[in-house]
């Protein structure tokens, strides 16, 4: 559908949240017991953090939960009864989600819907409406200005302008949301796209060349680059970058329970971990730098080669939360030939 533009008065946001709670399962940023920002289910608008700041965990868990039951089984005498989980039919509204989190869903849709349809994921995805909030300022490690991901799939985006939110509606789901609460929205009569562009320039989120997409040609030649070994060798192999990432989607399938009853479940898994590809007699990625290289190349070469978009929205979490601050953007630029100096100055030199 063609985009539509509305105005939402800043003092109406609370009302929108409260009223949406009657129709949707509303997810928004809030603070947990430790004071950390999380996507949760705040009971009132007072608990909602309607801010730019990113929670450590992205919003992907609402379509791809960290642990999810695939099959429940029960044995009675000689018979085994097994069934998949019942589909939960509930409309989720992701309220005030960052654009980088919201746009990620469209990107990972590709893998879940090519060939076999992954119904658990796609079911939840279809039930989710995205009401994104555009950032007024870039944060320390993020680099969405360097990735040209499409935001067209984000149902609605609210741009905080002077005195009001300019709400851009891009999908039918978004239109349904605005229509439901139409009395809160006013028509936008000005040149909305121009206003958005100005806003982006000011926020620092306007796209800047060279985009990281252009690094792919270089990356395709850099698989054997000697510096992987030294630059990625500080990677400790934890799962922080993948688990906090809005686009990382790899998972493991495990059984829990006994022979009598239990469940088969899937949990997030990470390619940077030692056990990811380990087979009894063979470990193809036997060094840590190879595992890190897989993550980087999957995002900036393999995935776009297969499905089109980069597997990255530039949210920067994998830099902010990385224990050793490995910087994926710098490494893409370096190995992709956009930059001559390696981050931190380390070279293998062979």
């Amino acid at each position, binding site marked *: 559908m063609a985009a539509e533009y509305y105005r939402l008065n800043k003092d109406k946001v609370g009302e929108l949240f409260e009223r949406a709670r009657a129709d949707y399962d509303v997810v928004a940023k809030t603070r947990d017991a430790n004071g950390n920002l999380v996507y949760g289910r705040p009971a009132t608008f007072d608990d909602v953090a309607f801010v730019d700041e990113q929670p450590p965990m992205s919003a992907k868990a609402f379509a791809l*939960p*960290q*642990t*999810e*039951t695939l099959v429940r089984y029960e044995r009675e005498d000689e018979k085994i009864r097994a069934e998949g*989980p019942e589909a*939960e039919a509930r409309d989720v509204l992701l309220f005030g989600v960052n654009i980088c989190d919201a746009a990620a869903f469209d990107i990972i849709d590709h893998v879940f819907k090519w060939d076999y349809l992954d119904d658990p994921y796609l079911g939840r995805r279809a039930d989710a409406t995205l009401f994104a909030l555009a950032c007024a300022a870039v944060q320390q490690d993020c680099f969405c200005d360097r990735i040209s991901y499409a935001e067209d799939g984000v149902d609605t985006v609210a741009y905080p302008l002077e005195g009001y939110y300019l709400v851009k509606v891009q999908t039918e789901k978004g239109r349904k949301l605005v229509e439901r609460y139409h009395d809160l929205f006013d028509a936008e009569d000005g040149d909305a796209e121009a206003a958005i562009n100005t806003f982006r320039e000011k926020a620092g989120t306007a796209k800047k060349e060279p985009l990281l997409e252009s690094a792919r040609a270089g990356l395709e030649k850099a698989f054997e680059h000697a510096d992987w070994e030294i630059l990625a060798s500080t990677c400790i192999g934890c799962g922080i970058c993948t688990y906090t990432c809005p686009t990382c989607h790899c998972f493991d399938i495990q059984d829990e329970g006994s022979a009598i009853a239990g469940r088969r*479940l899937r949990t997030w898994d990470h390619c940077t971990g030692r056990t990811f590809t380990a087979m009894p007699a063979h470990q193809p990625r036997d060094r840590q730098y190879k595992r890190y290289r897989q993550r980087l190349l999957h995002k900036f070469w393999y995935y776009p080669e297969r499905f089109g978009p980069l597997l990255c929205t530039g949210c920067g979490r994998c830099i902010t939360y990385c224990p050793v601050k490995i910087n994926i953007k710098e490494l893409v630029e370096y190995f992709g030939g956009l930059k001559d100096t390696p981050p931190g100055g380390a070279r293998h030199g062979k």
Partner: protein
Amino acid sequence: MTKAEKQKEPEKAPQWKPNIVGFLCNWCSYAGADLAGTSRIPYPCDVRIIRVPCSGRVDPLMILRAFREGADGVLVSGCHPGDCHYIEGNYYARRKFIALKKLLDHVGIDPRRFRVSWVSASEGRKWANVVEAVTRELLEVGPFRYEEDGDD
């Protein structure tokens, strides 16, 4: 079972009996328990015994796994200090259990849920007393259940 149903369940039904997992050293406590049986000493039958070669074989992992599988209490029993079949296994075990006990206490798991005893092969009576004491304590403490969160 839904959460609501679980809550409706009485916490301590009168017939409730604790699930106790006992890790017993093959050389002493297991024989001690055997002696208690052959001597026909009556004692509560709520301990499910797992025979291990030495109390030093008992890894804290096993104890936590037992809780995870539904044990209300875990009892580890080995040879008296100085009597270890392998000379020093129970001395090492003792230090390990100090650490585990300290941690369980700290995270708020009732200390009565994890007990250690030294019972020799000749102490059938002592074994019966230990089981009696452990069972009695667990009846006071009640069933062990982390509150279920569920993922879906």
